[in-house]
């Protein structure tokens, strides 16, 4: 070493960094080192280049930027000596990745080194290429690597084999060049070569159907024999792991056999014997043995059925499941999930054990077990299983409650045998974890409750009890408040008592108390408070004696700074005060909500234009038939983006009440609006601020106090849940309509109000390849310019059918992307059909940056995996 160098040695630098007591000190040391390395870089210092690079690697590991060292790697690689190259390649792999352009500069050095006479230098180049090669490099250097598969030293051959895997992953069309060399290398004896060539063979089989066929025909028998030899080989200390001969090799052999045997009865037959031998003879007291058994089970499950083996496999999993080692139990749960499709009955036998695993202290195991239980639930066991899960909900960890609740709700919704059970279970879940349930869940519960006509009394009484004990769980409070508002009279009079119920005495004042408590307790939650106000209005009619008290409670919100609450309370106050004659009709009980519509809507699979044919004429007391679907949709949070039913027999006053967009489409019958102003009502429900007023209010009516005027969306959607019951009845009473209009002028019909949809954007062809085209249609909602709704439409111009069609998209950080499920995953050929999928993009830098998106489309054509990728940057500006 040069004694005159003032620079520190690597060891000293590490020591200095380790001696730092604070992060600031460390930063100072690193800064100083980096400065001197930079100086050396610009001086083109040859003597200490390798030492500087080593230092940089250490600094890099600490998380500091080291890009200025990238060129140093290239210089070291280009140096003639082994030591320089060794550290240079290490730096290259550490400081760069395949996405850096600098990497291209190294292609030439790599090529030279791949042809070097020193096998270790060849090894270094292969290693670097295998770890960070880009597609271009793979293409350029593939011939060299292919040649090295035949190199005299096995250690180079094995590196070349792994390098080929990377090359094929990057450039799948190169696969065919490797098929023949691999077939001959599979006869190797050297474990390292065998190990890696098997992996390469597996990779070839996954990218190329022809390669798979070829290997299946030519090599299955040979590989079975190799496995046989490996399993029965005498003790070889070099490859022995806890008494098992080279488990790594055995596992890879089992894996390649799985690929070859899958879907091919002949190949599967060839391997039956050896699989049975592995499954029965492998020691299972050490991890290595279990790893082999695990792989073996997976292979047995995937190849063509031969009854006996499957039983063997399931038994192994059963043994795993009762193992005390958590790792083994974890993989057992994992495998049982796959085994369900093969032999559901056998998995069911382990139900009790699996259920215990849901309660395990290990989060990884709990999660797996829960997934598995979810798959195990069916009509016959839903009750006991749900009971177990609900019981466990009480004691589970806070951070597990979310997952658990979601699964329970989904089970209950999917498999509930009867309504009372559904309601009971949901109430339990809401009481335990009401803060974790999603809005759809309690919305769904309300729909079920309204449909269970004979259970109204029971439900409202149960909820009354529940809100007393679990008043802190928002979802319970909301459902309870809604039900008490609707069915308050049933609560007080104990109507419809079931045998199993304990009678309770609730006075009218008690019922109002509950709601008053809720409104006070949940001061920060707009939705709950708004629901409380509506419930109070309803109770004022159901309990005339409490009317005065209710009026006082309602009045307290008159001064609320939240527009929505203020407006509601003022309106309701005036209804209670001045419009006694109207009130009872206004707040009549809600019509039964249509479950089918709701569930279809929720699934989101209903085409946008079917609501016209969906009018469900409903007979209400005074005999005026009307369509109820539009309000229902609103009630159920399904977005007001549907055209109003244009065949509605009644005047569209009702729809006017419900939102500007419906109003506008109703006033222009027959036209489809490309841009709907309805926002996701859910969003609106949750947002407290009024949407920016776009139209000046011309009315001076008391009810349109706020800037939130006639055509504002947020109000109508927020009101949706309750204004419904008002509106349906108002419409029925067409005689006093004029006064109602006056009263509710805030919502009043005002067809002249211009509709503001924001500018329209032309559709773009986002992606076009030889056979596939993708068109984006855009829409925006006024009031939220940063959100763009995109409807993606895929068409297939080729003659083949695309199956397993998956569209993926990625966006930069300033965007947020939400993908809805696609309409289908099969795309018929010749442009005869299309898949549509909705995307919602939120641009956090709206106005500054345009949208940009990277997409990946994968599908199967004639059972062959296809992948198309692209970047979309031709979005209209200002999206």
């Amino acid at each position, binding site marked *: 070493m040069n004694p005159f160098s003032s620079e520190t040695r690597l060891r000293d630098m590490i020591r200095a960094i380790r001696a730092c007591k604070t992060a600031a000190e460390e930063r100072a040391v690193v800064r100083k080192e980096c400065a001197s390395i930079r100086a050396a870089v610009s001086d083109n210092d040859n003597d200490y280049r390798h030492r500087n690079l080593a230092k940089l690697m250490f600094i890099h*590991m600490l998380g500091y*930027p080291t890009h200025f060292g990238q060129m140093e790697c290239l210089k070291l690689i280009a140096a003639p000596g*082994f*030591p320089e190259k*060794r*550290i240079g390649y*290490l730096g290259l*792999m*550490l400081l760069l*990745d*395949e*996405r850096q352009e600098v990497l291209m500069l190294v292609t030439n050095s790599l090529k030279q080194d791949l042809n070097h006479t020193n096998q*270790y230098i060849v090894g270094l180049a292969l290693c670097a290429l*295998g*770890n960070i090669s880009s597609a271009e490099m793979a293409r350029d250097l593939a011939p060299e690597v292919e040649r090295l598969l035949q190199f005299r030293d096995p*250690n180079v051959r*094995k590196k070349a084999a*792994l390098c080929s*895997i*990377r090359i094929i992953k990057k450039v799948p069309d190169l696969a065919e060049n490797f098929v023949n060399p691999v077939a001959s290398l599979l006869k190797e004896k050297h*474990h*390292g070569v065998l*190990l*890696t060539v098997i*992996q390469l063979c*597996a990779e070839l*089989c*996954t990218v190329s159907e022809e390669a798979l066929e070829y290997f299946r025909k030519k090599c299955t028998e040979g590989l079975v024999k190799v496995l046989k030899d490996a399993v029965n080989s005498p003790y070889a200390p*070099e*490859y022995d*792991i806890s008494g098992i001969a*080279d488990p*790594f090799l055995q*596992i890879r052999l089992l*894996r390649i056999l*799985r690929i070859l045997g899958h879907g091919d009865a002949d190949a599967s037959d060839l391997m039956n014997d050896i699989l049975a031998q592995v499954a029965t003879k492998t020691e299972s007291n050490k*991890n290595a043995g*279990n*790893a082999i058994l*695990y792989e073996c089970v997976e292979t047995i499950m995937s190849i063509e059925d031969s009854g006996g083996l499957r039983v063997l496999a399931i038994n192994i999993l059963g043994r795993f499941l009762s193992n005390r080692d*958590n*790792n*083994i*139990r974890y*993989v057992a749960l*994992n495998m049982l999930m796959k085994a369900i499709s093969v032999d559901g009955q056998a998995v069911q036998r382990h139900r009790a054990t699996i259920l215990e695993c849901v309660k395990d*202290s*290990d989060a*990884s195991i709990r999660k797996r077990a829960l997934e598995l239980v979810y798959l195990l639930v069916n009509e016959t066991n839903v009750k006991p299983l749900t009971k177990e899960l609900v019981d466990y909900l009480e004691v589970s960890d806070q951070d597990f409650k979310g997952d658990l609740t979601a699964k329970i709700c989904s089970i209950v919704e999917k498999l509930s045998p009867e309504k009372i059970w559904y309601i009971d279970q949901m109430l339990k879940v809401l009481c335990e974890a009401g803060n974790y349930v999603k809005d759809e869940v309690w919305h769904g519960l309300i729909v079920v409750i309204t449909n269970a006509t004979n259970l109204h009394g029971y439900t409202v009484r149960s909820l009354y009890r529940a809100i007393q004990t679990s008043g802190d769980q928002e979802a319970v409070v909301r459902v309870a408040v809604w039900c008490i508002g609707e069915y308050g009279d049933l609560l007080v009079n104990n109507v419809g008592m079931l045998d199993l119920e304990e009678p309770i005495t609730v006075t009218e004042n008690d019922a109002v108390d509950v709601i008053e408590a809720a409104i006070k307790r949940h001061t920060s939650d707009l939705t709950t408070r708004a629901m409380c106000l509506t419930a109070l209005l309803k109770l004022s009619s159901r309990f005339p004696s409490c009317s005065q008290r209710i009026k006082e409670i309602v009045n307290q919100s008159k001064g609320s700074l939240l527009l929505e609450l203020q407006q509601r309370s003022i309106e309701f106050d005036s209804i209670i005060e001045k419009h006694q004659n109207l009130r009872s009709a206004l707040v009549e009980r809600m019509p039964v909500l249509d479950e089918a519509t709701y569930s279809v809507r929720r699934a989101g699979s209903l085409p946008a234009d079917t609501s016209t044919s969906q009018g469900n004429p409903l007979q209400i007391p005074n005999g005026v038939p009307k369509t109820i679907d539009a309000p229902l949709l609103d009630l159920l949070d399904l977005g007001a983006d549907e055209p109003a039913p244009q065949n509605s027999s009644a005047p569209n006053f009702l729809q006017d009440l419900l939102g500007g967009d419906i109003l506008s489409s109703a006033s222009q019958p027959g036209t489809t609006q490309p841009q709907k102003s309805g926002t996701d009502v859910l969003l609106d429900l949750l947002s407290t601020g009024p949407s920016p007023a776009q139209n000046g209010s011309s009315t001076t009516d008391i009810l349109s106090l706020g800037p939130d005027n006639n055509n504002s969306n947020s109000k109508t959607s927020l009101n949706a849940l309750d204004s419904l019951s008002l509106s349906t009845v108002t419409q029925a009473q067409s005689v006093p309509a004029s006064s109602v209009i006056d009263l509710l002028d805030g919502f009043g019909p005002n067809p002249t109000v211009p509709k503001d949809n924001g500018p329209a954007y032309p559709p773009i062809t986002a992606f076009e390849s030889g056979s596939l085209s993708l068109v984006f249609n855009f829409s925006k909602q006024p009031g939220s310019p940063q959100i763009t709704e995109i409807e993606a439409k895929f068409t297939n111009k080729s003659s083949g059918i695309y199956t397993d069609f*998956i569209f*993926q998209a*990625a*966006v930069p*950080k300033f965007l947020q992307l939400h993908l809805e*499920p696609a309409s289908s995953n099969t795309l018929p050929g010749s442009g005869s059909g299309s898949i549509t999928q909705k995307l919602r993009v939120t641009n956090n830098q709206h106005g500054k*940056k345009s949208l*940009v998106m*990277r997409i*990946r489309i994968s599908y199967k054509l004639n059972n062959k995996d296809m992948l198309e990728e692209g970047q979309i*940057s031709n979005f209209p500006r200002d999206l």
Partner: protein
Amino acid sequence: MVELDDETAFPFFITLVTTSINLLLQIHFVLLISRQGKVRLTKWYSPYSQKERSKVIRELSGMILTRGPKLCNFVEWRGFKVVYKRYASLYFCMCINQDDNELEVLEIIHHYVEILDRYFGSVCELDLIFNFHKAYYILDEVLIAGELQESSKKTVARLVAAQDSLVEAAKEEAASISNIIAQATK
């Protein structure tokens, strides 16, 4: 062209359905983290930008270092699995696909640790700090492209030793040349 937001432009693809089953074991990255959360070695076989890398390390050390000793050695993370094993004060972590054989990865970790142990002679964290490059050289003889390349510990040891001696030979040669120059210029 629209300007993309630095190198982290497209962090992760959002997928709704994952149907393709990966039949190959592929290790996406290897991490060595100390009990205090210090990074001792990182090796990335799938492309992650610098920002993503530090995010990954932060997320994983948060998840793994807090797990109790009796729990299983796997954590599920962003649709992948991370298999980890603690040796003294160091956590060895490898990230694999959902469907890969976790038990085998544990065995690979152990394989690597045994080789390190033989090379350094009962390895400790300090060995890996001061000779981090050696730990990388050894790892490069065990894994390439996230796949296992050698199941014989002896072979790996032999290959690393052979390359070390090449470096030593070069050093000696350089030293003797500078000696000769020093002698000549005396």
